[in-house]
């Protein structure tokens, strides 16, 4: 892939704008809350677009396009059932407690609702996970640019991380979120032409359907048995594992996304954040997954497009960039690459700002130094930005050297995350749940996840204890590990809660359903601004997509 001066001009213009936005917002940071929580002042259209942009890292764009090429339209389940229902749930049912409790972070909610040890467990694993995932995605970006453009790994990693560091250091969460919105527009406008050109060249949706096995262009029709689809999953594992446990575990409890909603300027705006975000979210498959499917059709057509081979198949991770090289002339190619960088930056800034808040408020203020003046915590927040970026860069280099350690860490974090939604569900909707119950449940769920992995085999992975069962794919294995972990955590939390002393109801106001008086819709909110109305419209739209592309 060769770049022309105009491509570099576009990349430079983008850098100038994101840094400029950070520079303009720096004046709005006067306290630690300004820096770490935006002091609950951000309008809905920004919070909702930042909510999905923070989740749309470069790995997601590259990975979803690759999955589209490998598995076909079933990849859309990661959006249509793996995100939308959970986004509706968190907006309608959970946000009143997150926002109403005035917790500054998700771990802080756990301290208010349960106890210190549950909060600390969540805060520490979350902090480690954010550093790890921003490092991994930095590694992916550096490697991709090295491969495709011949840029040096160190230069791409340091430049992109340096820019994120600069604008986050200057303006904190507000700056990160405002930039995420600009990045979101760029991602959509930069990738949409690619989807249109690739689909058009492959003969439209009909041309694609006629050239590929029917499994590639349906999302539900081939899920009746794991052997009927390339993903190797069946309906129950898909709906319960991905659609319930993994999806609700991520969208309803991960502070990376919840933080954006908590920055909203009113309760209604906070509740509407994931609901409004759901509209663009359910359309993203058309600009990232569909081009991947079109790429497979183009390969059947002998028009000169092909993916580089890898092992017995293809190197699917290069689908997005090879498509860009085939369809984008210089000029738009610069925009496409900038969009890829923008997605990396929005994901990384999401991780860094979430890490700042959890480290400063949940770990530093909670355990290392309580009761310091606010200016001290503002300084700690700023320093965390630098240290967190440094650790992410170190992780990226570690990933380059030791791929196996990274696989292992990814696995371990998967174990930690899977049971989390059971803890929140019981915490918010069952007043009898106790801190000891929640903590034991989390440990038991994490243990059960590890045990399931140790006892089952899939594509040569797992079964390090004994081999009791074999899954047709690692995806099916992941879904079932999540189901086991969630169920174990759910049951263990209930049993231990019933055996331990409950907290008095007076302490649970604003934290638990049934004791809290739910906020009435604000009188000035029009009918279409009500969370319930939005939720119904989102739900019906998503259902229609599932039926249409079933």
């Amino acid at each position, binding site marked *: 892939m*060769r770049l*022309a*001066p*105009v491509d570099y*001009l*576009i990349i430079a*213009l*983008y850098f100038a*704008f994101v840094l*400029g*936005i950070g520079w*303009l*917002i720096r004046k*709005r940071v006067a306290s630690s809350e300004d820096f770490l929580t935006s002091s609950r*002042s951000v309008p809905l259209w*920004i919070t909702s677009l930042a909510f999905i942009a923070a989740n749309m890292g470069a790995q997601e764009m590259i990975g979803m396009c690759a999955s589209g090429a490998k598995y076909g339209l079933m990849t859309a389940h990661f959006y249509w059932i793996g995100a939308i229902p959970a986004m509706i749930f968190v907006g309608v049912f959970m946000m009143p407690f997150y926002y109403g409790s005035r917790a500054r972070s998700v771990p802080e909610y756990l301290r208010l609702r349960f106890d210190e040890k549950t909060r600390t467990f969540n805060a520490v694993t979350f902090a480690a996970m954010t550093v790890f995932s921003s490092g991994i995605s930095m590694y992916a970006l550096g490697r991709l640019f090295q491969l495709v453009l011949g840029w040096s790994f160190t230069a791409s990693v340091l430049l992109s991380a340096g820019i994120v560091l600069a604008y986050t250091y200057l303006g904190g969460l507000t700056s990160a979120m*405002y930039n995420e*919105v*600009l990045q979101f*527009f760029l991602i959509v*406008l930069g990738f949409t*032409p690619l989807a249109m*050109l690739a689909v058009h*060249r492959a003969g439209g949706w009909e041309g694609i359907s006629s050239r590929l096995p029917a499994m590639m262009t349906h999302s539900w029709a081939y899920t009746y048995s794991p052997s009927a689809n390339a993903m190797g999953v069946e309906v129950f594992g898909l709906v319960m594992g991905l659609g319930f446990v993994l999806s609700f575990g991520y969208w309803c409890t991960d502070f990376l996304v919840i933080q954006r909603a908590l920055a909203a300027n009113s309760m209604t705006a906070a509740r509407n954040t994931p609901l409004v975000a759901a509209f663009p979210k359910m359309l993203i498959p058309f600009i990232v997954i569909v081009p991947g499917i079109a790429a497979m059709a*183009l390969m059947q057509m002998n*028009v*000169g*497009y092909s993916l580089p081979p890898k092992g017995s198949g293809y190197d699917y991770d290069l689908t997005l960039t090879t498509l860009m*090289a*085939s*369809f*984008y*002339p*210089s*000029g*738009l*190619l610069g*925009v496409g690459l900038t969009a890829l960088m923008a997605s990396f930056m929005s994901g990384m800034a999401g991780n860094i700002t979430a890490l700042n808040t959890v480290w400063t408020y949940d770990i530093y203020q909670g355990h290392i130094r309580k009761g310091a003046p606010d200016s001290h915590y503002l300084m700690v927040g700023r320093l965390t930005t630098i240290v967190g970026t440094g650790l992410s860069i170190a992780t990226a280099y570690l990933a380059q050297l030791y791929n196996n350690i990274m696989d292992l860490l990814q696995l371990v974090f998967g174990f930690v995350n899977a049971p989390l939604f059971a803890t929140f569900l019981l915490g918010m909707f069952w007043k009898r749940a106790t801190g000891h119950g929640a903590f034991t449940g989390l440990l038991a769920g994490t243990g059960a996840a590890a045990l399931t992995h140790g006892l089952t085999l899939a594509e040569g992975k797992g079964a390090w204890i004994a081999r009791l069962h074999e899954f047709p794919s690692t995806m099916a294995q992941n879904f079932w590990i999540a189901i086991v972990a969630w169920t174990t955590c759910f049951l263990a939390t209930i049993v231990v809660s019933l055996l331990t002393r409950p907290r008095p109801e007076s302490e649970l106001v604003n934290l638990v359903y049934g004791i809290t008086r739910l906020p009435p819709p604000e009188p000035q909110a029009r009918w279409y601004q009500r969370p319930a109305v939005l939720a119904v419209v989102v739900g019906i739209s998503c259902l229609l997509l599932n039926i249409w592309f079933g």
Partner: protein
Amino acid sequence: MWDLRLPSGLFFTLIGLILCATGLAGPTHPAPLTEVNVNLYAGAGMLAFGGVMLWLGLRRS
């Protein structure tokens, strides 16, 4: 309060102008798989988007 619509409107207007100019002049490296003048069309799209954002931002202030 500071309005994001102005800088993002300006950004996409500039990118749109650059793309349209490249589209009219002809790209340095054409795309192998398409004959369509994508720079011109995508540029016009971004120019329109940037223009709407600027108009919305300016109208308020």
